[in-house]
């Protein structure tokens, strides 16, 4: 097995024993990137200084207890890195070089991680397939001709193809969990407020959360430990002690109550997806967990609620791209004309569509009917979960109603694309954490993901369940 195919914790052991150096790992990753990147296109930018980063680590200190020391990690291209081009997958930011680091980048830098590059994504994270990137689509490493999911499709594909050991993505409506599911890797959206959003290019500010991708649950816990914590620079980050999430990986789920929501096992979900998830639930029951039937009655309203809240917030957040402060500019006859031409030329179709929808639902006369109404329904969705978690410790569902779809299959019908997030969106609206773990493949060889949702700040519960399943499937 090549070094780039190992996990963080396996590499860490070898580093501690001095069997290998960070440079050895970097060289294996670089070799993989040169071999497969032209087919996968996981990255918008591959860093050419990985070896220097590794060399600097050697000088800075020797291998410590730090589990991310010397580990190559890919970063979704919507997280600011000082001096490194950060585009959010958009033409409007094609030349943007941030003058500061996001909170998570500082954390990883201090932990001794090595940055491999900036991962491809749907433009401004608007999408579920990574096809809306200005820099071209990412391909699913598991099967040719299929999408990797999105919007963090590059981050998922980089980890699945071993072009990075782990990666960071962001999740506004499923953008970590859905591509993790479609690429057969582990992906987690932490509780809203667990990880600082400082330096994350904003999409839907009340929904956005940064989280890890990895090839096993242990690495997910390791990366979550590294990026969590309070940050005064993000006023929505929560000042709550961060537990050692690795300690949750006991392997035991005895007595754990698994909530199975009837609204998630409906007609229209792929038969093989359903079978794989049912099998995973049985596996956990065999380990001593107990199945509890629950109901989340407002599930059918989640997508509609989401596409009001998320586009309203996105249209406000994207007002800042005006050709004045940074990014692309297209000259016009006057200031307003310059704004209009810059934005028309700089934004792709899906970004324009969402700006239009968001502007409409916030416009005079419609605010109460749409944005206010949606935020009231959001309360009902949150209350569904509060009630359900009175009976269950965790909630199990499919991550995505279908396995990966073909490139181009859903690009002409935005509503069909939106509906592919039907099982992941509610967790963002409620703010609760969720993880997707691989639970088998279809006959065609496409991965299926099991989603495990937990109570607020109960990342330990979902990691415990995910780990027990992973060890015993």
């Amino acid at each position, binding site marked *: 097995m090549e070094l780039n195919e190992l996990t963080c914790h396996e590499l860490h052991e070898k580093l501690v024993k001095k069997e290998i150096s960070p440079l050895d790992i970097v060289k294996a990753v670089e070799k993989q990137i040169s071999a497969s990147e032209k087919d996968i296109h996981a990255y918008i930018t591959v860093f050419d200084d990985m070896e220097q980063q590794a060399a600097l680590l050697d000088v800075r200190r020797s291998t410590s207890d730090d589990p991310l020391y010397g580990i190559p990690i890919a970063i979704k291209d919507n997280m600011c890195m000082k001096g490194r081009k950060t585009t959010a997958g958009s033409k409007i930011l094609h030349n943007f070089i941030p003058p500061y680091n996001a909170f998570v980048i500082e954390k990883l830098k201090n932990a001794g991680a090595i940055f491999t590059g900036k991962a491809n994504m749907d433009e401004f994270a608007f999408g579920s397939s990574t096809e809306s990137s200005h820099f071209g689509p990412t391909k699913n490493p598991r099967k040719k001709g299929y999408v990797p999911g999105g919007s963090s499709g590059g981050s998922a594909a980089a980890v699945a193809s071993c072009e990075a050991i782990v990666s960071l993505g962001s999740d506004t409506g499923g953008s970590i969990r859905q591509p993790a599911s479609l690429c057969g890797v582990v992906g987690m959206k932490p509780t809203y407020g667990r990880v600082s959003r400082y330096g994350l290019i904003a999409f839907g500010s009340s929904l956005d959360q940064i989280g890890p991708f990895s090839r096993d649950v242990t690495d997910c816990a390791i990366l979550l430990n590294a990026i969590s914590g309070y940050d005064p620079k993000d*006023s929505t980050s929560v000042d709550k002690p961060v537990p050692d999430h690795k300690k949750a990986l006991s392997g035991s789920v005895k007595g754990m109550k698994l909530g199975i929501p009837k609204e998630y096992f409906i007609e229209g979900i792929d038969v093989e997806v359903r079978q794989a998830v049912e099998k995973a639930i049985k596996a956990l029951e065999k380990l001593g967990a107990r199945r509890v039937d629950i109901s989340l009655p407002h599930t059918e309203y989640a997508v509609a609620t989401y596409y009001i809240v998320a586009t309203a917030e996105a249209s406000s957040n994207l007002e800042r791209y005006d050709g004045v402060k940074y990014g692309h500019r297209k000259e016009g006859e006057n200031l307003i004309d310059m704004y209009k031409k810059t934005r028309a030329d700089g934004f792709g179709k899906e970004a324009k569509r969402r700006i239009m929808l968001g502007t409409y639902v916030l416009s005079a006369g419609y605010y109460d009917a749409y944005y206010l109404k949606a935020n009231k329904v959001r309360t009902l969705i949150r209350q569904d979960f509060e009630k359900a978690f009175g009976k269950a410790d965790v909630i199990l569902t499919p991550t995505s109603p279908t396995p990966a779809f073909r490139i181009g299959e859903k690009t002409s019908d935005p509503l069909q694309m939106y509906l592919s997030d039907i099982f992941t969106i509610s967790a963002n609206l409620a703010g609760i954490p969720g993880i997707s773990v691989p639970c088998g493949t279809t006959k065609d060889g496409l991965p299926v993901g099991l989603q495990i949702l937990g109570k607020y700040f109960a990342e330990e519960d979902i990691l415990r369940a995910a780990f027990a399943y992973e060890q015993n499937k």
Partner: protein
Amino acid sequence: MKIDRKAVEYIANLARLALTEDEKEEFTAQLDKILAYIDKLSELDTKGVEPTTHAVRLKNVFRQDKAGPSLSGEEALSNAPAKDRGHFKVPRIIE
């Protein structure tokens, strides 16, 4: 709610987007379809329900009114498409 071409032009102006004729046509049809789907929410009675603005409720977040490290003027201008003597430069707005 029915959305027509005039509404699309009105919103595009609010959003400061210059749309092509093709885009106007495409968005009219697509937004109409999406809004029809979204209207599903009107089925629900939400009288007396408090809206959620943040999923994890926090009390007011205060900090000391003290300056911390921040970007220099030069750094803040480093990405500007046009600048002049320490300022962002835009097309003339005063005759």
